[in-house]
């Protein structure tokens, strides 16, 4: 990004240049919009509009930060300055309603789901691209069709099935309930992501590997995985957020260890009437892990989704 920005920094030459040179990176529409009369339009209106948009998008969160420091009385008087009740609100959220416990369970569950999906998808991608076997297109279609069948459609039947298995109870070896993780270990999206990604790698790779007598698993872990960090990162982000945002499923299942999105419900209508500060504080705290994951893995995420190719 830095390099590109420095190459494309507006200079006088830009306005003097008469014909567009095909070699420069000019993929963005900014070129043709900015140059409509051969002159560069000032950029401050764009900045202004973007700042407004960002402000609107960030607004709800800023408001949540404000309210989370206030008491209900501050809120009723529409005080726009931070209050002094952060400690009390924290006490309600963290010690009384034990949001930390829910967040811990959610973290473990999301990490398990994300890694489970990445592993099964890597294996499926390997099979789809580097092997020939009878009935491949039937299998492929079988996986493809699941894109049209979100879990939510059959969630009631799934609930009956999983609770008959007793999977709402705490899992073995101190793991969270199996019902929260195992049903979500397969990912058609992931299988297709890796299939597409592997197919774009040169065929010489696997040929050379075979000549060297490399087994498929060695090939996967020593060659494919290091070449696929971006795709893996992208899938990890998507699936971690998927796991963290799960709401309906844990709500139905009522597992022994509850997840944070349902746990937040405990902050609604606590005691008498709604205490708004703790509610907002809880919502903020519960948003930190997914946003953190998103920010940390942003680069591989963008690249893995083939987004931001100019970076």
């Amino acid at each position, binding site marked *: 990004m830095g390099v590109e920005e420095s190459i494309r920094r507006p200079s006088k030459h830009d306005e003097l240049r008469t014909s567009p040179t095909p070699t420069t990176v000019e993929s963005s529409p900014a070129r043709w919009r900015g140059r409509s009369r051969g002159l560069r339009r000032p950029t401050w209106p764009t900045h202004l509009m973007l700042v407004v948009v960002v402000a609107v998008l960030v607004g709800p969160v800023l408001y949540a930060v404000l309210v989370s420091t206030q008491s209900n009385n501050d809120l009723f008087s529409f005080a726009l300055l931070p209050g002094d009740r952060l400690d009390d609100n924290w006490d309600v959220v963290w010690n009384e309603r034990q949001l930390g416990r829910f967040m811990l369970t959610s973290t473990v569950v999301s990490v398990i789901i994300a890694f489970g999906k990445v592993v099964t998808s890597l294996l499926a991608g390997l099979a789809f*691209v580097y092997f020939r076997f009878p009935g491949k297109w039937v299998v492929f279609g079988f996986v493809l069709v699941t894109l049209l069948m979100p879990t939510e*459609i059959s969630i009631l039947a799934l609930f009956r099935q999983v609770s008959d298995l007793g999977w709402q109870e705490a899992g073995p070896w101190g793991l969270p309930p199996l019902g929260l993780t195992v049903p979500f270990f397969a990912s058609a999206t992931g299988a297709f992501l890796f299939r597409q990604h592997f197919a774009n790698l040169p065929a*010489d790779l696997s*040929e050379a590997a075979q000549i060297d007598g490399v087994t498929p698993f060695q090939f996967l872990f020593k060659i494919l995985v290091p070449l696929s960090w971006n795709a893996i990162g992208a899938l990890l982000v998507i699936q971690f957020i998927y796991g963290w945002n799960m*709401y309906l499923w844990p709500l139905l299942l009522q597992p022994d260890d509850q997840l944070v999105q349902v746990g937040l419900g405990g902050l609604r209508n606590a005691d008498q009437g709604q205490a708004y500060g703790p509610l907002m504080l809880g919502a903020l705290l519960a*948003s930190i892990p997914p*946003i953190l994951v998103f920010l940390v893995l942003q680069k591989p995420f963008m690249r893995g989704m083939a987004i931001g190719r100019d970076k």
Partner: protein
Amino acid sequence: MYPLLAAAVLAGALVGRRAWLRAGLRGVTGMVVGALAGFVGPLAVMNPIRSCTFDDERGGVDRALGILLFAGGAALAVGLAVWIVNAVARPAGPRAARDITFERGSFRGHRFFPFGLLAPTLVILVLFLYRPMVETFRLSTHEVRTTAPRQPFVCLDKYTRLMEPTIEWWAIGPAALLAVVLVANVVLARRGAVAPSLRKIRDLLVVLVVVAWATAVFGARYRGVFTTTLVLTTGTVVLSLALGLAIATLVSQKIRGRGVYRTLLIWPYAISPPIAGILFYVMFDPLVGIIGNVWETLTPFEMPNYRTEKWLARFVVILASVWKTIGFSILFYVAGLQNVPTDTLEAAQIDGAGPLQRFRHIVIPALAPITFFLIISNVTYAFFEVFATTTYLTTGGPSGATTDVMFALVQAATEQGNFGDGAAQSVILFAMVLAVTGWQFRSTGRRVTYGR
């Protein structure tokens, strides 16, 4: 039922013959295969429900639904046969085109190994996706309650209880208009005239008619649920895409710090639907919410209460969903805008096309694949995830104004303990997903190219 079966067999034979002749094969084979498909298809659909819709004591709605199912089964089987013969007859069928296995690079000498690699995915999909799906269909034809151990078969009662077809002017009007347009199309085609705008109107009318008739089929109680889903979905998709494209265009300009802007614009993607609900719940709170306060400071009007005003409740739910999904739309439109062909744009500019014309005729068509993907993902979001927002924001109210299909089916299962009702509504939702996907594939999917 037997006359129907005869009709299906006959229709199958005719369609089969035509398809086989078209593919350059013997028509007789096509007739036999088509007839067989016309026979097996309906039975495959009707047997699991024991053909109960044709029992004597059943009402008209049951019977109509049964005929529809019957015809659907026949169409599916015959269509499948035609599709297969086309795929096989064409020299480079979809098989060859879509096979991206390396000719040279694939591993040899592992016969069962790839199945081992696929086993985890397939086992999970079969056990936790396909099996519940089949079970959903079974549940939807049985009276299943949490309290009762017995699960008697109830035919399609769970569906027909939701249906009470009435004749409505808003269902007849578009249909009549569509008929006029269809006739006009035929007349114009006979005269050799082409009317692309008329075709667009026709496509639009078809969608309108399907939606209106589907609405008119449902009884008063469920009609509200259905229309709520339509309103919430349309609102979310249209606003998220339109605003997303506008903002993506802004942030694609060559300006300083656009990387920072992008990060600041995209992060709401990571916010969860329930939390979007909570934030908007407090912001729009009729007593303490900041929105009401700002509104009443800036304007002389009183802020309407979203917990009693139906339209506002829906609007706030849409607003919360758009706020949550817009990051995703921006993300993909920014990526799409980078792939808009620059040379075409410059050629158009030299030809004197203004910025708006270029946007309309070059940028938007070039973005069609992204739009296709975003419509599907936003519709999926609106169908399945908005539920979590509404539980925290409006709990389905006021008086059911934000109770969508998902909310209603969860309610049926959890509050009334009626899993049969819930399952039937799940199947309706599934049909809606299929309809949207099919429509999307028809209108834009053909132009979409995947991969490279």
